[in-house]
Every structure is written in C-alpha cells, then in structure tokens.
C-alpha cells in the first residue's frame, strides 16, 4: 500500500476536525432538549421550553383490562386493585343510583381515575404557564400549572390541584393533590380526599408514523390503598377534532 501523502493526511485530519467540531456543536442541541432558561436572556416560559409537544387531540386505545375500563364492571369485582378492607367496605356499598341522586355521578371521572377511561383528550396551552387538558368523557378539564403557582383556597375538586414540571428526560411530571374523593374503577372502588397522584407524560414516535402519549400514574392513598396503585394509559394522536365527542358523567355507563 502506498504511504499516505501529507496532503491526504491533512485532509483526513481536517475531516476528523470537522467531525469533532460537529460533535461539539451537536452537544448544545441535545442539551437544549432540557427546559433550560434562555442563556443570557430572560428565562423561557414553560410553553416555550417544552421539550415535547403534548398539544392536539389524543384517543385512548384500550388493549388491556378491557372489561374494567370499556364497560362498568359488576359490583364486588376488585381484581388488580390493592385496596384496603376499609376500601372494600366502601366499594361494597356502591350504589350508582345513590351517586346520581347526590349529584356525584362524576366520581369516576376524577384525576385518579379519569385517565383510564375510554375517551379523547384535547391538550392546549391555556397560557404560557398552564397546560390545559379537556377530556370528552365526562366533559372534564385538567389544568397543569408550571412555576410557582399557588393553589387557591377552596373545596377539593374532582381534578384537584396539579403542579407541572418538565423533566430533563423530555417528560412532563405532574403532581396532583387536593382531590375530592372519587372512584378508581367505575364500580365504586374508592380513593379518598387524602390521595395524591404522580404522573409522567411521555411522547414516543413509531416507525409507522404514529405518535403516542404514554401516561404513567401512581396513586397513593393511605386510607384506601395498601400499596401505590401504578397504572399506565396510552393515547394515540389524532389529526383533528372530528371524533371529539363530549359526553356527561355517568354513574352506570
């Protein structure tokens, strides 16, 4: 093999230099995936710093636990929920007619249960620091507040108070408290007003062009759960609102 000329060697070295510089330049690009404040300028708003795009229409795709999620299961069917005996006694008294009469037909649409229902989501930015999620099933709205938002005083609500935080991994972390007690499952499996919720929202892109939002949820409730109740829900992105179908809360369906 002929010895490499100086010229060739220099070209090769220059090529490597270019590769190295390109590598260096690519680092800030990767780093920018984190929700960093603008360098040398004012901090970016959570909206501007969003490492993933959660906005748009999403449909829940229910491929497991179908009979617990697509229809209301029968009374006493508590399989797979690590409930306490006290929770069982509450659930055993489930009476959808009573819930309706008391105006509590939205008990299974609270934050700890609603993400597991068959539904569509519409996610938008309400403002630079508030992500809004409208849910057609039960016509619910969840608000995710970034920054130093302070929850207003007042009664607990179905959707509670949610604090939001971008994580370095390109994920949205939500912590929800101040919940009005509701149902984890439509047949009356309860969570209490002391329950708190931690969620992670991730977005993945598939080879077939589909985009999915994955919501991993941990419910902790010292009163009604023996263990953290860890579940996930999966939502496929839809192109538009053509299948958006708001329906009122129902205790029976």
């Amino acid at each position, binding site marked *: 093999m002929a010895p490499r000329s100086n010229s060739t060697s220099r070209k090769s070295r220059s090529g490597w230099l270019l590769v190295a510089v390109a*590598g260096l330049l690519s680092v800030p690009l990767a780093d920018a995936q984190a929700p960093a404040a603008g360098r040398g300028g004012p901090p970016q708003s959570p909206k501007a710093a969003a490492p993933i795009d959660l906005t748009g229409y999403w449909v829940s795709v229910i491929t*497991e636990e179908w009979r617990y999620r697509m229809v209301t299961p029968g*009374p006493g069917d508590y399989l797979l929920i690590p409930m306490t005996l006290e929770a*069982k006694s509450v659930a055993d008294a489930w009476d959808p007619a009573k819930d309706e009469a008391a105006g509590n037909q939205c008990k299974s649409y609270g934050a700890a249960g609603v993400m597991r229902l068959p539904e569509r989501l519409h996610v938008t930015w309400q403002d630079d620091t508030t992500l809004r999620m409208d849910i057609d099933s039960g016509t619910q709205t969840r608000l995710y507040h970034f920054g130093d938002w302070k929850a207003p005083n007042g009664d607990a609500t179905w959707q509670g108070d949610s604090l939001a935080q971008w994580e370095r991994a*390109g994920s949205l972390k939500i912590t929800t408290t101040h919940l009005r007690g509701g149902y984890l499952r439509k047949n009356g499996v309860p969570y209490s007003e002391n329950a708190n919720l931690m969620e992670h929202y991730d977005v993945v892109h598939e080879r*077939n062009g589909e985009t999915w939002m*994955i919501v*991993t949820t941990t419910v902790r409730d010292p009163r009604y759960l023996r263990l953290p109740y*860890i579940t996930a829900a*999966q939502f496929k992105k839809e192109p538009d609102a053509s299948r958006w179908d708001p329906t009122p809360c129902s205790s029976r369906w």
Partner: protein
Amino acid sequence: MTDSKRFFALTLLAVVLHVPVSAQVDLSGSWAYRSLLGNVGGPRPVDYEGLPLNDAGRARALSYSESQLSMPERQCMFYAPTYLMIGPFGIKMWNETNPDSGITIAWKIAAWEDRAPMTIWMDGRPHPSKNAYHDKGGFTTGVWEHEILTTYTTHMKANMIRRNGTPSSDQTTMTVHFIRHDDLLTLTATVEDPIYLSEPIHWTRMFQLDPEAPIASAGPPCTQADEGPPEGAVPHYLPGKNPFIDEMTRLYNIPEEAVLGGAETMYPEFRKKIKDKYVIPGKCVRDCGTPTGR
C-alpha cells in the same frame, strides 16, 4: 498547540461530551412487574377484547386449545419476545460493553423459564435478511432517542399475543420504548403482524426497580414430562366448536362482538355499539380480588 494535539483534544472533548447524549439512562437491574393487568393468572380462553384481530387471526385463535401447552413438543416451546409485554414477570437487564472502549454494545434481558433471553444490539448492526433463521429470542436492535431506549425486534417465531392462543405470525415485528422515571420503568410497545392483525396493537406496562428481589439471569431448564395428551394428537377446536366462546358473556355480560375482538374494540366509540346490549353483571363471585389484611 499543534494541529495534531488540537485534533486529539477536540476529538476527545467531542467524544466525552457525547457520552451523556447517547447513554443517558442506566436500565440495569431487577425490575419487578408492577402492571396490575388482567393477565396475571392468564386470560380466559376466548377473551379477545381490545385485540385488533383480523378474520384469520380470530379463526386461528378460536381453534386453539390450551391443552396444546401439554404436548411434549410444545412444553419447552417458549414464548416469543412479545411475551415481555404480555407475561406476568419482572425483567432483569444489564449492559455488555466493549472491553477496550467501555461503550455499550448490547443490552441484555434475562430469560424467564418460558421466554428466551433477549439481546438488544446497540452497535448499529443491521437486521438479518428476511430469510434468515427465526430464533426464539428474535433479533433486536436499539437506539437511544434522548433518554428513551427504542428497540426493534424482528425474526421472531410464530407465537401468540395474548396467553390464550391469539396468534402472532413469524412476520410479526415489535418496537419497544424503555422509559425510565426514577425507580419506575415503563415499556410501551407497538406490535405489527400483517398476517393476523388488521392494525398494530399497542401495549404499555410498568416495572419498578427492586434491588431487594433480584431476578435470576437465566430461567430454570425446561424439562418435558407426560402431561396427558396422546402422542401425535394436537388438541384443537374445529370451526364453530370452541366451547368457551360464550364464557365472557355468561360471566360478565360482555357482548360476543366485543369478546371476539377486532380493531374497533380498542376505541371509545365502540362503546356506543354495545351500549344497548351491555348490562352491569350481578355481584362478583369468582376471581374478585377481595383484599386481605387491614
């Protein structure tokens, strides 16, 4: 600084700074199964709700008898890598590195007693020819997409996508995203099968790091035994003869059109189709999950 020194310094810096970009998350360890899904004890024989089966898939599923698992030829058959997403076990993961560079060349997922180990090749090697041998563990490659490990598996053997005989063909492919949040690991997968599915199926399940309950790196050896089926016979049901076709309807009032699956059963609007047919069943008397303790 000479050109040479500058070159090496820049290259070294680029490499060093790139490491966190391409290998940000440590997935190694024993991850306990935390999905409280309906298949812990296995699904009922004809329970296809939420599966996008096409007509061929449904027909094949209805021909399946669970006694097939007792055939000597099938006792050690192993599930395909899709079992990662439908089985009831935790997973153990570790990485294998190039001893010279320290760079991860593969992630390994330990075997279960009924699933072969998986190797996720991270070194950029291509998938084999479509005509290459299909292994029990399939062939899997992976890439980091920011802090998510995305894997792609091909060359699986024909198997099932639910543990009741709903079939998957040897043309099935699976994409899995490994997403770690602190001690939680979420796996979300898309499985495509041009033979038995009318559209892809998507699953998500959770695992939790549990160093106090280490998972073995290899499952126990499989030993065949006489479990009853006569030699040479393949337990099955002829068309229209599956005795379990109405079991979900009898037990839970699930309409047959839901029980038999199909892509539409995955979506919310399917509820409208069965709303007038579904009645909340009576009090649960079997497999109800009644809590014990406090």
